[in-house]
């Protein structure tokens, strides 16, 4: 194990990173093209792989450390889509190391880190929820400063393709805005329209004989929904 790598991943704010194997880091093939991406590439690589022995001043040392972190991040994006990397990230996912979905209806679904771009310095890391299929900002500003390219745009989707059983069931349950117990007409109309889109999608999937992946309880809910809608009427319906 590389001590510098261990130190890096165990320091505060770096909880999203997994430990890259020494064999992976020392295989030049895996680093193809990164020499143009990283300043002081060779020193940075030496630092990451524990063979750094340059005698230099503090400023230079700091520069090289910064480059080493950048290099680690870029290699990380490649590593986490390998078999070993995916397994390590899966472990972290199971432990909810990346946090849980803030959406109430997602009932604390663990998140996965992802980038909105594969190009470095484009946008910071986001968190993907496989239950609502949406992306969220990390809570901590320390995490919000990490480059999204260190995780890339594909990783989270590849993880669920490789481990399909990790895919959570989708839910139709949702928040319905109400005022004095009544649904709010504008929001309710939009939600009915959305439900139509959803049902169209379900029909398409059924026609293609693909499982929709929704919770079973949803069926029950649908009939309840219809009842509710009728009660709503023109916003002045009698109290329930």
């Amino acid at each position, binding site marked *: 194990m590389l001590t510098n790598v261990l130190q890096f991943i165990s320091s505060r704010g770096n909880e999203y990173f997994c430990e890259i194997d020494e064999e992976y880091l020392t295989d030049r093939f895996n680093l193809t093209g990164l020499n143009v991406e990283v300043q002081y590439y060779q020193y940075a690589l030496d630092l990451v792989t524990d063979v750094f022995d340059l005698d230099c001043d503090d400023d230079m040392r700091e520069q090289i450390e910064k480059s080493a972190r950048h290099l680690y991040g870029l290699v990380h994006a490649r590593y986490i889509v390998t078999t070993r990397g995916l397994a390590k990230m899966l472990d972290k996912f199971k432990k909810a190391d990346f946090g849980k979905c*803030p*959406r*109430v*209806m997602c009932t604390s679904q663990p998140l996965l880190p992802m980038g*909105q771009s594969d190009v470095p310095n484009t946008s910071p890391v*986001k968190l*993907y929820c496989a*239950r*609502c*299929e*949406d*992306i*969220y*900002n990390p*809570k901590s500003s320390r995490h919000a400063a990490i480059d999204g390219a260190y995780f890339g*745009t*594909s990783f*989270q*989707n*590849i993880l*669920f*393709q490789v481990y*399909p059983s990790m*895919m959570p069931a*989708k839910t139709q349950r*949702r*928040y319905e*805005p*109400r*005022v*004095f*117990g009544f649904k*709010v*007409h*504008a*929001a309710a*109309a*939009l*939600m*009915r*329209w*959305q*439900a139509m*889109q*959803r049902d*169209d*999608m379900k029909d*398409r*999937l059924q*026609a*293609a004989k*693909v*499982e*929709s*992946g*929704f919770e079973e309880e949803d069926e029950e809910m649908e009939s309840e929904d219809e009842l509710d809608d009728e009660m709503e009427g023109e916003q002045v319906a009698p109290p329930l």
Partner: protein
Amino acid sequence: MSSSSQVAESWISSFCSLLGHEYFAEVSEDFIEDDFNLTGLQSQVPMYKEALEMILDVEPDDDEDEEDEEDEDEDEEDMLGEGDRPTGYRRAGDRRHMRMASDLSMIESSAELLYGLIHQRFIISRPGIQQMAEKYDLQHFGLCPRVNCNGVKVLPVGCSDTPGQETVKLFCPSCLDVYTPPNSRFQSVDGAFFGTTFGCLFFMTFPELDVGTMRVQTDDRMASDTNSASTIINGIPATSRIPLPPQPSIINGVAPHNLAPGLGTGNIHEPRIYGFRVSERARSGPRMKWLRSRPDDINELDEAKRFWEDQEEVLEDEGTEMEEEAMDGQQGIDADEGSAIAASVKKARKAQLNGGVSPMDTNGVGEGG
């Protein structure tokens, strides 16, 4: 004797300044002193009178009353006591002191419950909602965590009006969803203290408030049609864009630019692998886009009009002409709306025009084979 005499700050303001109580408004004493506002709370809160006195910083009165209560307590203790009375000798004074402390903490928690229930009513009253509006402006409730909501301000809400059911949540007007507050200190705050009505009533009370900005710029990778199941290489325009029909300035009582502006074309996460969209038909493919969608043509949300249009289509095939007439009528009705709304609607419409193609046009298209 009473702790309230020693603190300069009122109970209410010290309660509101506690860690985790940042979402609370300071209920005015006027509001609490109006009995009408407290209707029905007496039966929900134990030690109601004491709790109310504590909230209002009123000195507990009559020594007589107090002694009476103490006697009762003593009796109770005698009945319960017997077996589990501590073996050591405890002086009467000590016992009394302890009992008072525990009483005080009971009253304290009753006061918190009572304050919360009054708070639920206060924030939907005129002065209360005004105070919450100031807190909202100052971003006291935080921002929506959803990336595509672009840091829209949120409001504290409850998912139940009954205390003890759920903790406080945050309602986002831009995606119409609720979220758990980011800081765990809010996980001990009862959602009922904010209630189910406040969130929506707030935005109905301030319709001129811009809840969020519509995405104006067109991001090609996201703006392409949201319903297509085909995998298309990044950058290739999905479908030719059809201009939208005239958009109403009010839809179901809300200005379109304030109706879930964080949803719809351009605001839906599109899963990709190496630049290729993941197909809807893939086992791990997208299934939740509906949750974040919104029609590009907002007229689709006019259910009454849509109903009549459908009727017309059944009768004759001249659907489009009818549609145009209906649209003109709609615009006539809303002609006297403020120019500000008209301007933002125009802006929103432009955004939608840039945004891409109506979901209507892609429904069922290309899914056949």
